[in-house]
């Protein structure tokens, strides 16, 4: 039945103000895959992820979800997707728990794990009532990462999720990803660190080379 891959990206190119950032990006993603986007600073990893979330429009090429072009299955696609960017969308004046409650409330779907449990698992057990401006950099990111535990989305797009996270946290996060793909999900992430994940695939983003004059 499901011949079509979960996500397929064909010949994608993006240009901003007449200069092309990358072109001919091609890959497919199936359930169970973890795809790491590699590339130097400024090579366009964040831009690629934002193209995938639909925040930006590609100049050329097509992204399709389960065989359908994004524009035709916007609602389903966005419901099945979770994106955590450089800016983790954590409100400084709210506590970790309030932040998470709001994130869950706006999400299309979530599982039964309670918010308290999720916060405990990411190591914020005693911190759930403290306003987030009083959290350390790593704790701040952990609030956003707790969303992963509650999410039911199949596609996770994570932009440098390991930023500011300590070693133990990195290991925990990797086991989370592993579990997610084991359940049939898929992950695209960008990071400069080396990961130890089964079935990890890499995609190297190369700068666009101007052809002709």
């Amino acid at each position: 039945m499901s011949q079509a891959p979960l996500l397929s990206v064909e010949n994608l190119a993006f240009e901003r103000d007449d200069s092309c950032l990358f072109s001919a990006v091609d890959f497919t993603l199936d359930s169970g895959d973890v795809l790491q986007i590699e590339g130097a600073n400024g090579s366009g990893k964040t831009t690629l992820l934002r193209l995938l979330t639909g925040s930006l429009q590609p100049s050329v090429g097509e992204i399709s979800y389960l065989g359908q072009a994004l524009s035709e299955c916007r609602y389903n696609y966005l419901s099945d997707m979770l994106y955590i960017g450089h800016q983790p969308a954590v409100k400084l004046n709210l506590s970790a728990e309030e932040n998470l409650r709001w994130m869950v409330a706006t999400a299309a779907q979530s599982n039964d794990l309670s918010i308290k449990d999720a916060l405990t698992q990411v190591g914020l057990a005693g911190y759930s009532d403290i306003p987030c401006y009083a959290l350390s950099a790593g704790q701040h990111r952990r609030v956003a990462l707790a969303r992963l535990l509650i999410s039911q989305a199949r596609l996770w797009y994570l932009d440098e999720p390991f930023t500011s996270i300590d070693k133990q946290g990195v290991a925990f996060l990797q086991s989370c990803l592993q579990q997610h793909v084991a359940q049939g999900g898929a992950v695209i992430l960008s990071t400069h660190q080396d990961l130890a994940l089964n079935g990890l695939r890499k995609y190297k983003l190369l700068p666009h080379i101007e052809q002709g004059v």
Partner: protein
Amino acid sequence: MSWLSKLFSKLFAKWLPNESSSWQWFYRLGSPKWFYRRSGQWLPWLSLAALLVLATGLVWGLAFAPEDAKQGNSFRIIYIHVPAAFLAQSGYFIMAIAGAIGLIWKMKISYMVMKAAAPIGAVLTFVALFTGAVWGKPTWGAYWVWDARITSMLILLFLYAGVMALQYAYHSIDAASKASAILALVGTVNIPIINKSVDWWYTLHQPATIKLTSAPSMHMDMFMPLLVMIVGFYLFYGVALILHTRNEILRRERKTSWVRELVNAKAGL
């Protein structure tokens, strides 16, 4: 704004242009290159016409039209004041329509027209305000009074200023075009409301002491030159708009091959 264009095309599918139909000119118009070439052919004729009509109107109005019984010669400011006020108002709608076309059909050229129309309209509004103020001193004894029409003209100037400021504020051309098109559209919805409310405000607060609208029905000899001037201003507006748009085309398309060829050809001459 994709949902908007989708909604639009669903609603008006029957009448919408599509490439196979007789609407082809519409699509060709969307091509900056085509527009640049064509407008280059129109421009000399249009400029000539504008020049002739404006000259006729000015000479007629300033030299031959009779002196006003009450105001003497100062009334001749009307030949600048009224056409400028006219054009300032229609200019806003031209700008907003161009913006709407851009949003709906994603036509590049109409964004350029929109961008070009804003400063022209703002200058005309300013001219209307300025000539009005100069005229106000001899007739009303004050440069500025809070009359309904004058106020709505001032607000129009602010609307223009907003669109221009937004154009310049954005870094990305695409975002600038779309954002100012949205603002221009919101403004168009508001212009009639603003005009109505300012009228209401005026009549509510103050008995009619001086009123622009109730200018006594003009003598034909004074009115004809005015009419000529208005036509002249429209032509002039057209010329200015085309010139500005052409400029904008060159600026935005400077990297395309046809503009490079054009520049090379000019340089080679």
